[in-house]
Structure formats: C-alpha cells, structure tokens
C-alpha cells in the first residue's frame, strides 16, 4: 500500500497529505506497526540538521491517502536527549494531523503517562495497545472499553507481528482522517497541563479502572530476594558469603603463593646477587630493597586474583545489590543516611575515591561525617596485609581472621559515624537510598575475568609504582648514617636515619604487644600505602639479618619470633591488636589529601588525630584484655 517512501524530504512539507505520527516510548513496537501499516520494512531517513533517523511513508488505506511517520521513542514531553527533542519538535508542529499513541500493555503506566501529556497537545489521537500477549503471560489484562472511556480516546488492541488488530486500527485511522476533513479543529483550544502529581494520579485511576492483575504470586526471584534481603536471614547470608570468600581465597591461593615465593628467592635473586656482589650498596638497594620488598608483595598476586574473581562472580550474579540492601539497613540502624552506602562500598576498594564519592550526599554535614568515617573501611591494600599476617599466625583459620577484620572495620565505620553525629556534627540524617535489584543470572566468564583483571592490574600498578618508590626511599633512609663513623650505604640499621625513626617510636607500642622496631617502622611507612607494610617488613628484616639477605619464606618465622618476644609470649593477642591497629589508623597520605581537598585541612587533620588515637586505644585494649584470655 506504500505509494512512496520518502527518506530525505521533511515530511511536513507535503502540506496536502495528512500527516500521521506513531508516537510512543522506546521499544513499544512503533517500527513494527509502521512496517505492518505501510507494508514496507522500516527504512531510515536522515532528518535535516540531525543524525536522528525518522521513517516516513506515503500510503493509501481504504481510499484515504496519508503520510505516516515513525519517529524516535520518547519517555515524556520534557525531552532528555536529541532523539526526544526531535520527536518533541515534530509533535509541536501544526502540520501534524493525527497521533497514534502506542501503549505497551506490559508497561502500561509509563506509556499512559506519556499519553496524558500527548492529550494536552490537543491533536486528534488514537491509542494502539500493543504487547497484550506479553502482558497476558504476566497476568496483566487490560479492559479496552474502560481504558477508552477513561482516556476519552479510541483504543485498539494490535499485535503487529501477527497482524491482529491492524485492520481495525487502519479503519479507525481512515475514519478519523475523513472526519478531520469535515471538522474544523480549534488548535488554540488546549487542555490545561497537569502537574506530575496530578498526572500520576490520573494514570493510577486509569489503571485501577481498566487493568487487572491475576498473577500476584511472587516469582522465584521474589522469594529468593525476600530471604536474601530480610533483616536476619539476609545479614546471616551476607556474613556467610563473606566468610566463604575469605576462607576460599586464603586456602586456594596458598600453593600459588609458595610457588611464586620460591621463584623469586630461588631463581631470580641468586644470579642478581652474583652480578652485584662487587657493589654492595647497589646489591643492598636491588636485592634487599626492591626484590625483597616488591617480591614479597608479588606473592600476593594469587590472593588478590582469587579474591577479585570471587567478588566479580558475586557482582555479576546480582548478589551484590542484595548485599547492599542488607548493608543499607545497617547504616540506617546506626543513623547514617542511606546514601552513605555509595562511598562506603567504594571505600572497601580504595579509600581515596571513596572520599570523593561523598559528593553523592547533598548535605555538607553528611558528607563530612561519611568522609571522616571512610578511612575505617578496610581497603584492598589492607586486605593484603591481613592475609599475610593471618596466614603466618593463624594458618588454616586465616580466612576467619580476615573475615573478622572486615567485621571490625564495618563496626568501626558505624560507631565512628554515630559518634560524630552525636557529638561534633549534630543533625538529622535523612538521605534515603532506593536500590534497584537486577535480575539474578549466571555470571559470564568474560565479565568476571575482565572485571577481576582490572582490579588485579590496579594492584600491580600500585606495587610497580608507589611501593617501589617507597622501598627506594626506605633504602635511602637506611643508608644515611646519623651516628657512629659510618659511610653512606654502609651503615648498621640502628645507626641509620630509618633506624632512629623506627626505634624512636617503638616505645609507643609497648602496651600494644607489638613494640618492635621492624613493625613500628613498617607502620610508619604504611602511611604511604598499606601494601608498603609488607614490603617494609621484608626490607627491614633483610637489612637486619646478619648476612643482609633474607629468603622470603623466612620472613614469617622472623615475624613470629619478634611478636612472641615483644608480647612476652602472648603473640596471638598482639597480632590481633596489630591487625586492629592496621584497620583503624590512617590508610594513606592520598586519603588525607583527598579529605583535605573535600573538607579542608582542619577536618583532615582532625580525622588523622581520631584515627591514630582510636587505633592505639583499641590495640592497647585488645592486647591487654587478650593476653589475659589467650
């Protein structure tokens, strides 16, 4: 029936041919209906001055000639994109004679909202109700008569793919167009526009009077969601999932870690040592510094890879959003705004972007409270240290200990935010959060591996960047003599600048059970980045050993001995105190810089003071109580 298909000419220039536009939200079946009525497959034409495509066809139906337009989908008459702007402009043109509003019966409310706006254009309109088969399968039935009465517009049910209803629609179109020739429309007479609130009420009333839902039984997904997001079962599932992730990570990664460690200490180190034997200072820098420090961190590559893979699996399956609902409830329980969840979730990856992410909160007080609480979230850099220490001291229970540290971290975030809210930054905390629950699905290999790789790459960049720089800086401080008659790069560590700093602060940790200069020094360098704690330990023990060499696998034995000594035999209590100190004290200088940028120097320093005080007090309390019990 298509007499001509004009792709390039402005459709409204054909003034004598009545113009009919198919209008609707995206994906409601406009193009299929266009093809069915025009008898042609949808062809695209470039609309002048835009790149948006509009299909048009001149057709004759029942002796009535008209031009039909298939224009881009639109969600409302307030255009939000160039496509929508084009549709809006076409609808505003006086030349448009008839609107065919396409309403998807399976998504009826949104479509009727648009129809109620289209009515206000005061142009003749017919509603084509599509997707009734899909709606019926979902238990949604539309009473066409009632809908037509409610809208005061003719409604025709059509299924363009099977031709159902298209003949009736064509009949109504031609009848309406024929009527237009005899009726004089007063285009100036317009319906007063409704506000959003009134419009929604109108649509709600329409749905109440014309739509019946027979399927109210919850789907399997709904039932699973009920369990996974319920206060008790949801929280217990989340804890269980986290425990499985940490326990699997530590168990599965162990053989790979040992393999990488043996490669570094047995294959890479000896030939380099042989080459550098004549230049002791360079050997100290390369072997005792870079290889020892960075090499130890690289043994965590399998740990981080497995952890990131498991987290990506959870994310792609749709579980993470359910976990967010459970966490959100916890936030509200503590009086935190719902939106606080956004930066805090980022914080478990890295604290620096998490501080910037507080901008999602509109209230300045909320931003400050959440921004100062972010450093207590256990970032992935701390995770490496947790796994390292827990693996040495707790063996098969390492996963449980790491899991415990995450619980400590979450508790600290909530308690600190609550403390700020009740003391320094008083005020109401109402910034609600609505979480979309994506459908469950089987994780896809491509997404899981690509996502995990991005995070592993981030870890490698950190090791290859800031960690190497810090290792070199520590080596330099260890090389600078500050007492005795020593030369640069040939100084006993206790007479070096680094030794003086580390040993100077060691007594502070006496009540915590880990007052040893190796550990104190590592905690100081941990201000740069938390992974550096591990590389610094490796470097400190390497330099401190009599032959100035350390096989990486021996690091654990040395740490055990020193913790045993510094805690007078209560090493388990001292290690837990150390891990809690690590969780609580300032994450890194980059986080301080981010806080300074967001909240000013005063608040950034206030945050650091709180973190150090809380970390020390908690470590002391844990060790002093722990040594009585363990």
């Amino acid at each position, binding site marked *: 029936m298509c007499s001509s298909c004009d792709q390039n000419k402005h459709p409204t220039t054909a003034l004598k041919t009545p113009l009919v536009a198919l209008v609707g939200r995206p994906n409601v079946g406009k193009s299929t209906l266009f093809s069915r009525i025009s008898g042609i497959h949808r062809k695209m034409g470039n609309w002048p001055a835009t790149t948006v495509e509009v299909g048009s066809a001149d057709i004759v139906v029942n002796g009535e000639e008209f031009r039909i337009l298939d224009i881009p989908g639109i969600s409302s008459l307030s255009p939000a994109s160039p496509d929508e702007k084009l549709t809006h402009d076409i609808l505003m043109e006086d030349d448009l004679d008839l609107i065919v509003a396409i309403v998807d019966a399976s998504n009826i409310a949104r479509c009727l909202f648009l129809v109620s706006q289209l009515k206000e254009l005061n142009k003749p309109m017919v509603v084509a109700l599509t997707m009734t088969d899909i709606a019926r399968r979902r238990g949604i039935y539309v009473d066409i008569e009632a809908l037509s009465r409610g809208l005061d517009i003719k409604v025709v049910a059509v299924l363009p793919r099977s031709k159902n209803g298209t003949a009736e629609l064509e009949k109504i179109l031609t009848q309406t167009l024929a009527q237009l020739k005899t009726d004089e429309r007063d285009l100036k007479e317009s319906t007063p526009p409704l506000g959003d609130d009134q419009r929604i009420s109108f649509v709600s009333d329409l749905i109440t009077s014309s739509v019946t839902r027979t399927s109210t039984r919850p789907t399997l997904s709904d039932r699973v969601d009920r369990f996974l997001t319920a206060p008790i079962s949801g929280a217990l599932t989340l804890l269980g999932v986290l425990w499985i992730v940490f326990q699997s990570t530590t168990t599965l990664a162990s053989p790979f870690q040992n393999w990488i460690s043996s490669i570094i200490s047995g294959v890479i180190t000896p030939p380099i040592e042989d080459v550098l034997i004549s230049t002791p200072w360079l050997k100290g820098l390369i072997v005792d510094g870079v290889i020892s420090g960075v090499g130890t961190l690289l043994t965590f590559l399998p740990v981080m890879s497995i952890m990131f893979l498991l987290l990506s699996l959870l994310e792609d399956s749709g579980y993470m959003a359910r976990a967010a609902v459970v966490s959100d409830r916890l936030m*509200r329980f503590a009086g935190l705004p719902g939106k606080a969840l956004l930066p805090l979730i980022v914080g478990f990856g890295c604290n620096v972007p998490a501080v910037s992410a507080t901008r999602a909160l509109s209230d300045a007080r909320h931003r400050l409270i959440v921004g100062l609480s972010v450093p207590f979230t256990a970032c992935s850099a701390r995770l490496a240290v947790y796994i390292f220490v827990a693996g040495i001291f707790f063996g098969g229970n390492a996963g449980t200990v790491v899991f415990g540290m995450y619980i400590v971290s979450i508790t600290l975030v909530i308690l600190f935010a609550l403390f700020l809210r009740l003391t320094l930054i008083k005020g109401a905390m109402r910034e609600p959060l609505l979480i979309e629950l994506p459908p469950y699905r089987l994780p896809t290999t491509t997404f899981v591996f690509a996502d995990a790789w991005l995070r592993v790459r981030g870890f490698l960049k950190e090791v290859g960047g800031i960690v190497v720089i810090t290792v070199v800086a520590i080596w330099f401080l260890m090389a600078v003599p500050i007492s005795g008659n020593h030369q640069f790069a040939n100084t006993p560590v206790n007479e070096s600048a680094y030794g003086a700093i580390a040993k100077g602060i060691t007594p502070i940790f006496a009540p915590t059970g880990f007052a040893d200069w190796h550990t104190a020094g590592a905690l100081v360098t941990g201000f740069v980045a938390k992974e550096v704690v591990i590389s610094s330990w490796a470097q400190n023990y390497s330099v401190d050993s009599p032959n100035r060499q350390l096989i990486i696998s021996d690091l654990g034995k040395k740490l055990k001995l020193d913790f045993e000594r510094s805690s007078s035999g209560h090493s388990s209590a001292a290690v837990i105190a150390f891990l809690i100190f690590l969780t609580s004290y300032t994450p890194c200088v980059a986080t301080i810089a981010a806080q300074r940028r967001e909240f000013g120097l005063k608040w950034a320093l206030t945050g650091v003071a709180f973190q150090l005080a809380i970390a020390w007090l908690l470590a002391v309390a844990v060790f002093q109580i722990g040594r009585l019990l363990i």
Partner: protein
Amino acid sequence: MSTPRDLVLAAYVSGTSTRRKIVEVTLLDPDIVDLIIDTMIHSGEMNRYVLQKDCEFGGCRGCPLSEGCAP
C-alpha cells in the same frame, strides 16, 4: 488525601529501600511505583548512581560519582 506520589515518597523517605518493598507498603500497582520513581529521577528529586566496589575502568572518567571531582 494522599496521592500515589505522596505514598511512594513517604515510603522512600522512611527508608524503604527496594521497589518491591515500596509496592508492598503502598499497595500501589508496581507499574505506578516504577512510573513515580521515573518521574522523581526525571525531575531531579532522586538521583541515579551505579553501586560499585572500586574505581571502574577509565579511572575517574568512568566513575558516576566523579561529578565535580578535581581533574
């Protein structure tokens, strides 16, 4: 008398954090709840963010929370 929008807004502000829960609390048609959420996002009363656990590919450029961050 409360409008459907008032009911959804009240549920949202009081901390109802999923669409399903809002449907249960307000007894409104699920499509109407979706419509109201859409219009609130469109009008700027609600903002849409992507939950993420870390910086995404592309660094800050790929982060939906980075609006206004320093370059």
